[in-house]
């Protein structure tokens, strides 16, 4: 501030050769924010522990989980699971103020922990909670944050290389935070795989006080209305997913996707244009700006497969593309293809499965 900046904007590759200042060199270890609301840990936290384990091993440092909650009882299971899914250390902040997620106290708890114990990398789930918290924490710490990463790695110089789709998912970019710590990143549910659970594994727990009372928190939770299970699209964790795209040609034809899903016990969804056209609701959108899925089987009917869609489904074990265009981008990442009109294939496929399953059920 005292220094008058040169009257010339930074341009080109300015900044890509940034050095880490000395006061950040002590920052060490990889942290994962464990998201636990209403007693249960969000699976994205375990997926992050899996990824964090790889980063920590590559750096030769410890992997830690951060668990925050309203009482020791409420977080006991989460702490145990954090160890069992790979953490060496668990930091806890326990205070009645943290019973429900609220931005203010959670931001304070996390930033205090970071300033006290100084991690080099901090990972959060790109859920509504994680995104709400990550932006506040990064701004408070004035450090870099890369949102919605699809790949995390350590480069040759030991920095976090965070890759994410950019510009509507048409390109990928790799982003670094070279002269601030911690290096922060969020990752969406189902982008990373689940680690093996090591039953009974435990480690060191470090507790830290919140240092804030209920009177200090302006925002109050008046009520929590849980979603009815039946209304929720369970796309991210579904084993079988059937989805449609513009190749279906009309909103009425989307029923064909639902019909096949009903026979297979699958969840159904669609590509982004279908949400924009109002054929399906936003919570059924599959892709970078919608839901990321990792099913055992993914059937994409009439979906061309833009990168924005691709990054949302690449984790599927088996991808079937039904499309009239043999050169559609989806053919680059699908395993099986039927080059035909989805509007004709879907009813035939639904019928074939229906027959096969009813015959074999009777036989069984």
């Amino acid at each position: 501030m005292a220094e008058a900046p040169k009257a010339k904007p930074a341009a080109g590759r300015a900044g890509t050769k940034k050095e880490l200042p000395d006061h950040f060199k002590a920052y060490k270890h990889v942290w994962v924010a464990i998201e636990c609301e209403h007693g249960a840990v969000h699976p994205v936290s375990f997926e992050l522990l899996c990824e964090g384990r790889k980063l920590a091993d590559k750096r030769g440092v410890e992997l830690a989980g951060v668990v925050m909650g309203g009482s020791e009882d409420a977080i006991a299971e989460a702490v145990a699971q954090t160890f069992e899914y790979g953490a060496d250390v668990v930091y806890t902040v326990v205070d009645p103020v943290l019973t429900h997620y609220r931005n203010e106290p959670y931001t304070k708890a996390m930033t205090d922990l970071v300033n006290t114990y100084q991690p080099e990398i901090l990972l959060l789930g790109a859920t509504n909670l994680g995104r709400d918290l990550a932006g506040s924490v990064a701004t408070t710490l004035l450090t870099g944050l890369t949102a919605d990463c699809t790949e995390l790695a350590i480069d040759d110089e030991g920095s976090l290389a965070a890759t994410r789709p950019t510009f509507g998912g048409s390109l990928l970019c790799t982003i670094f935070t070279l002269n601030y710590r911690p290096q922060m990143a969020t990752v969406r549910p189902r982008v990373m795989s689940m680690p093996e659970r090591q039953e009974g594994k435990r480690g060191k727990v470090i507790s830290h006080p919140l240092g804030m009372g209920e009177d200090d928190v302006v925002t109050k939770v008046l009520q929590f209305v849980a979603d009815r299970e039946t209304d929720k699209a369970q796309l991210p964790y579904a084993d079988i997913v059937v989805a449609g795209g513009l190749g279906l040609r009309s909103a009425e034809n989307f029923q064909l996707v639902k019909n096949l899903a009903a026979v297979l016990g699958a969840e159904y969804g669609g590509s982004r244009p279908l949400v924009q056209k109002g054929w399906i609701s936003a919570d059924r959108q599959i892709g970078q700006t919608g839901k990321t899925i990792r099913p055992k089987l993914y059937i994409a009917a009439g979906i061309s497969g833009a990168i924005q869609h691709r990054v949302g489904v690449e984790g599927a074990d088996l991808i079937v593309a039904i499309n009239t265009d043999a050169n559609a981008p989806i053919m680059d990442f699908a395993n099986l293809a039927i080059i035909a009109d989805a509007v004709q294939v879907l009813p035939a496929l639904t019928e074939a499965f229906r027959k096969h399953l009813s015959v074999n059920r009777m036989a069984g």
Partner: protein
Amino acid sequence: MHIVVCVKQVPDSAQIRVHPVTNTIMRQGVPTIINPYDLFALEEALRLRDKFGGEVTVLTMGPPMAEDSLRKAMTFGADRAVLLTDRFFAGSDTLATSFALAEALKKIGTDFGEPSIVFTGKQTIDGDTAQVGPGIAKRLKLNQLTYVAKISDLDPDRETITVERRAEGGIQVLETRLPVLVTMLEGSNEIRRGSLEDALRAAKADVVKWSAADAGIEDLTKCGLRGSPTIVKKIFSPDPRSEKAHPIDTTDLSMDDIAQALMDELFQRQPELEGEFLRFAATQFGQEVGHG
């Protein structure tokens, strides 16, 4: 009541090119629109103004041509538009963006009245980060309400606001004090059709244009590329997989035969799928019986 809506002008298509030397996005020649998520924020702001009185100011940071989006916002009914534009802002990441916007919001407060509510969309369609809103809230010490599906109550006298916030697995009903930063969820409302008067007014209106200096920003090292802790080192297209999808031979086959061929291929590649489908079919059968 003064309400500010932060909007962003974004490319309307996926036809984005990357500058080969600077690795920055070449926006020239790509049609632009107001970030669609921001329209939910704008409509909510206009509704509150219509109900409680006051003014709606739209604010954007961007190149001079971002003025188009501000005028568009005025055709919907915004009262005032502020464009923050300066080459010093080029290359801003979310932290540098929230810094510049927060400084502009301070200046807006001084010049046009302190805002009770600052709105943003839940995220943009080009960056998709959802981080600038929380960044602004933190810098200006505004109470932060993200992913708001509904504003259920606003009491300007008591300076309180109650909202329904989309949380994981349910809706949080939150009450807090003004001033607040609200990021609006998609589908929470529908942008109005602007009136003819608004269209005429928007065409003639003066858009307030501020450089970094005009907005009172002294420390330019916090702006643009220089003020951005994140560094984009590489932009690239993903590699195509080495092998393309295996096409099922459909030559001379009827639709039924094609379906049969796909089903056979699926069960051959992943035999456990058949068991999974059968188990599901059995539960459906059970239900049918149960329901008589």
